[in-house]
């Protein structure tokens, strides 16, 4: 093929484009989306690039349809993704639930803007973090990654595809408008240096295949349409064969499986960037674009000799509860800057269990924190 799916080399691109290239590098060959600021550039890049590499781009009639289409494509054996922002993410919740219940791998990129409702279409927000965790009804496990740079938009989209294949469920890339529209150097490695998890297909006889079986807290391999396993896939509570069974007993197995596959593997999934935690008296906890500012504040404070730690969440979900729990008794406070009125800060407060103070530095959206205001806030505890 004349066009490359992996654009190995150095690029000067924005985070949205890097998300698209990350998807292509991970093997995504189907994208269904709907225009929305500030995520449109992901779709535009995919519309141009997918036909070059043998994939299909389709612009659907809304985000509900986009989410449904990527689930269908995934059952057709093709890695699939969509991208959106707050209002579209809200519409996707219904079929995100279907993806969780039917254990369908795919990736949803959310370039967050200010909300609620139409909010600030062109300006930054980080207020969809709890929606990613709890937005669709019912219980399910959640994996959400928060890139802090265009480079990470690439890296974490690849990683999101890998996690979606391993745990067989939709995985969220929770970027934000600042990171999505920021242009920086992005290095795309050669194919041999990229870790790409390919789908596991069943190869056992038909009668021994149980598509919704839990095998040591992991999902079963996934049969593709037409492979001959004649699978039934339903959003209803179902047994290990996929047959609907409307009883409390099967509900107990079904829901615990889709929650536990994340809960029991949380420590394997969680990624953080931790600097200076060993002697820290105050820990700055941030993610996404906010972590860039927090990092600057951390360095300034350290330069002035203050014992400050920096904890960047790369996976927002599952949340690094054990780490916070372990840090809490030996630090004075966690300072949590985020562009919402308290989402990750509540999780920090909950897991710190009153053993350290927690300060939420909230911005409602439309602007980012300054290093000075973060330094000032940390100063309260020094």
């Amino acid at each position, binding site marked *: *093929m*004349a*066009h490359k799916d992996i654009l190995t080399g150095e690029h000067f691109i924005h985070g949205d484009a890097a998300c698209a290239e990350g998807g292509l590098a991970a093997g995504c060959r*189907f994208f*269904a989306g709907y225009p929305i600021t500030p995520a449109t550039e992901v779709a535009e890049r995919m519309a*141009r690039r997918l*036909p*070059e590499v*043998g994939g*299909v781009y*389709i612009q*659907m*009639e*809304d985000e*509900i*349809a*986009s989410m*449904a*289409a*990527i*689930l*269908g*494509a*995934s*059952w*057709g*054996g*093709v890695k*699939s993704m969509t991208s959106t922002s707050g209002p579209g993410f809200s519409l996707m919740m*219904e*079929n995100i*639930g*279907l993806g969780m219940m*039917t254990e369908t791998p795919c990736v949803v990129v959310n370039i967050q803007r200010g909300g609620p409702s139409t909010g600030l279409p062109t300006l930054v927000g980080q207020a969809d973090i709890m929606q990613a965790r709890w937005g669709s009804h019912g219980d399910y496990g959640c994996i959400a990654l928060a890139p802090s740079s265009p480079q990470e938009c690439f890296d974490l989209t690849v990683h999101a595809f890998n996690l979606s294949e391993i745990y067989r469920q939709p995985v969220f890339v929770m970027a934000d408008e600042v990171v999505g529209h920021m242009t920086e150097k992005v290095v795309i490695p050669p194919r041999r240096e990229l870790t790409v998890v390919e789908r596991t297909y069943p190869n056992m006889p038909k*009668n021994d295949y*149980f598509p919704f*079986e839990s095998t040591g807290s992991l999902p079963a391999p996934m*049969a*593709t*349409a*037409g*492979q*001959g*396993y*004649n*699978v*039934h*896939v*339903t*959003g*209803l509570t179902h*047994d*290990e*064969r996929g*047959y*609907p069974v409307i009883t409390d*007993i099967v509900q*107990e*197995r079904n829901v*615990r499986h889709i929650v536990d596959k994340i809960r029991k593997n949380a420590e394997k999934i969680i990624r953080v960037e931790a600097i200076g935690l060993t002697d820290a008296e105050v820990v700055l906890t941030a993610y996404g674009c906010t972590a860039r500012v927090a990092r600057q504040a951390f360095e300034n404070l350290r330069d002035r000799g203050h014992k400050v730690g920096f904890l960047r969440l790369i996976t927002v979900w599952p949340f690094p509860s054990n780490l916070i729990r372990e840090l809490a008794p030996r630090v004075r406070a966690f300072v949590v800057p985020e562009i919402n009125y308290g989402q990750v800060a509540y999780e920090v407060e909950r897991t710190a269990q009153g053993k350290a103070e927690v300060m939420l530095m909230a911005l409602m959206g439309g602007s980012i924190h300054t290093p000075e205001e973060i330094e000032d806030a940390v100063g309260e505890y020094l």
Partner: protein
Amino acid sequence: MKVRLRELQPFDKEAAEAAIKHDHGLHPHDEYLKPGRIPHIWCPGCGLGVVLTTFIEAMRRKNITPDQCAVVSGIGCTGRVAGYLNMDTYHTTHGRAIPFATGLALAKPDLHVTVFSGDGDLFAIGGNHMIHAARRNVNLKVICVNNFNYGMTGGQVAPTTPLGAKTSTTPRGNAEPGFNLPHLAHAAGAVYVARWTTFHPRQLVHSISQTFDKTGFTFVEAIAPCPTGYGRPNKLGAGLDEMKFYGEHSEIRNGAPPGDAEIELRGKIVVGTFIDVDRPDFLTSYNSRIVSAAQAKGKQKEKVKIA
């Protein structure tokens, strides 16, 4: 936090297998039915069994094996069709069968992807998806079982309920007219449009088997009795009476303009194959216009590099 859970009762594979061995093979269509899924949940007198059988007959007639097919359903009584067919079947969310099937059909273009769903699912909550899939001419076979009401939830008014008809949410009669489904499907761009009732199983088999030869968006409406939700409040009698009623009120007019197929309460029902045309489906158009242009440009670039 500590979590206390009830003890899990593991899946009993042997019992499931024994149940299948006990029942599977008794039904003449068992080759096409998912082992262990029959008996179905439909009411006595319901028309869904007839439509399911005509689909299987059409597959037989065209020598299409279950491995060449996938069925996608939405929610409702017709939404349960998927679960009974012994092929890859997807029971999705309410109204979203068509966009799910769109993704599936584009990822697996060699499969015959059929959407089996009800009038409420396809034309109320899923109406927008339906018209856009028809406009794009996605290679999908849509079979809409129209029973003029929401059966699963107990007989509420639907987008197809005729003006004046009684349902549990229109106890004094429906103040709105219903959709003319073939007219809507045609206007949106379907390449094949037919309507029959369950009184016309042979014609239904014929129409469904014709859709297996079409590439693009096809639409078959099957009017089916719902004695529980629609027949009773509208005094159409038992399931058999309602089916006879539809049969007697039908007027076969193949090739009729779909605009003539309006349905009125106790009025005549125009049935037949209304539309059978050809135009490039989504994937053909995408490949010939977009993919070929994108890849030609890539080759050009390569030539320049070589030079």
